[in-house]
């Protein structure tokens, strides 16, 4: 089932609204608390659940992948760089997970786009996306194909 918000926990900070990839978390106009405006469009990505500083958002997983009566809750501790999950089944069985979210201080691995020179007119007219040539090495001898690399497609299973 989609996300839902515990109204007594929410303080209307807007982190869930900011992060929702479906843009369905909004601030209620009457109570100024977050709520899911279109539950059928929620794909349960847990982005808002993890982003909520008050742990006010919860999700009930669909019965086809999670048994009814279960609870899956997450605690994202950015300062410690970890994410913890607790899965609790209706028979009382608990499973706890703790994993790193980042091994470097936050923000150090993000390119500072403001420092990168803007694209030239030629780059703007190109059909390539930003920084695309760098990754497919089109600027380094053209597109890499089987032919350009002297390879041949072989039919069948090759060991």
């Amino acid at each position, binding site marked *: 089932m989609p996300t839902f918000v515990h109204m007594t926990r929410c303080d209307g900070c807007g982190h869930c609204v900011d992060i929702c990839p479906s843009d369905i978390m909004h601030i209620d106009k009457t109570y100024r608390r977050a709520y899911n405006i279109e539950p059928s469009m929620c794909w349960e990505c847990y982005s808002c659940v993890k982003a909520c500083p008050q742990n006010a958002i919860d999700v009930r997983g669909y019965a086809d992948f999670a048994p009814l009566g279960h609870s899956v809750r997450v605690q994202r501790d*950015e300062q410690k760089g970890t994410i913890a999950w607790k899965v609790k089944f209706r028979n009382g069985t608990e499973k706890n997970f703790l994993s790193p979210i980042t091994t470097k201080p936050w923000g150090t691995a993000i390119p500072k786009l403001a420092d990168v020179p803007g694209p030239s007119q030629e780059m703007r007219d190109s059909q390539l996306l930003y920084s695309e040539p760098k990754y497919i090495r089109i600027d380094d001898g053209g597109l890499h194909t089987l032919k350009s690399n002297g390879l041949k497609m072989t039919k069948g299973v090759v060991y």
Partner: protein
Amino acid sequence: MFATNPFAAMTAMLPANAMQIYVVLAVLAVVAGVVYDMAHKGSAKYFFANWRKTKAKASQPVGGGEMVSIAIKTGVVDVLASGEFCNMRRRIAHLLTMYGFLLYVGTTALMIFGYPTAATPTPAIVAQLWWLGGLMVCAGGYWFWFFIRVDVAAEGGSPWRLMRADLFVLSLVISVTLGLLWATLQARSSAVATAFFGLYIIATTVLFGSVAWSKFAHMFFKPAAAFEKRVSKANGTAENLPTQTRDDPEQQKRHSMELLRDAPMDMGLGIKREAPRHY
């Protein structure tokens, strides 16, 4: 102006008893509004059902002494210091409004009941605290109203667009603003002072009469929710949230923690590095 009791000066026009009865009616309106709000939303029912559920699932019982300690922590951190807010601007604005309101309401009651007429001279400090409280409410309230509230700060909405969520804040700041304006005009013997007193009474009646529909009752249910949250952490249920953390030596031995073995315990802020203003 700042050292005189504006209510005592009104007794020439309005008997002191009438003002005292009005204050009693305002208190009764708050009580009735909160009770109606709790019954209508079922918040008390939900709170106690949740309380029983949490207690039944507790893995470590919380004793009386610990319960008192949790109540004190809730009172000091969550209530007196508005610890719930993660946005510092909101927290400061809330503290200004909250303490301003308490000061303003307390000194209003003191001036009306303790020093109702000119025959019972009001100590200057009481009137000065009334002014200070009113100005604090205005500072926190207008700051929140025009700059901090989420639909203006984050969604770019107009501060002039009104909705039901604004009923409490707006009636509070308007009531206090009109009260201060009335006191100023009265001190200057202005002809329109009485008209402003009428407007002040209307705004104050809206503030205390709309408790059932406004968020006035949050000052009662928010501390209860904060207390319940702390108790659930202490008794091990933690609302089913994970309780394992990296600073626990046992958890540091986990295979999944290998990558963070040499990492500092404070890795800095993640998404909280920026205010949520991208929507």
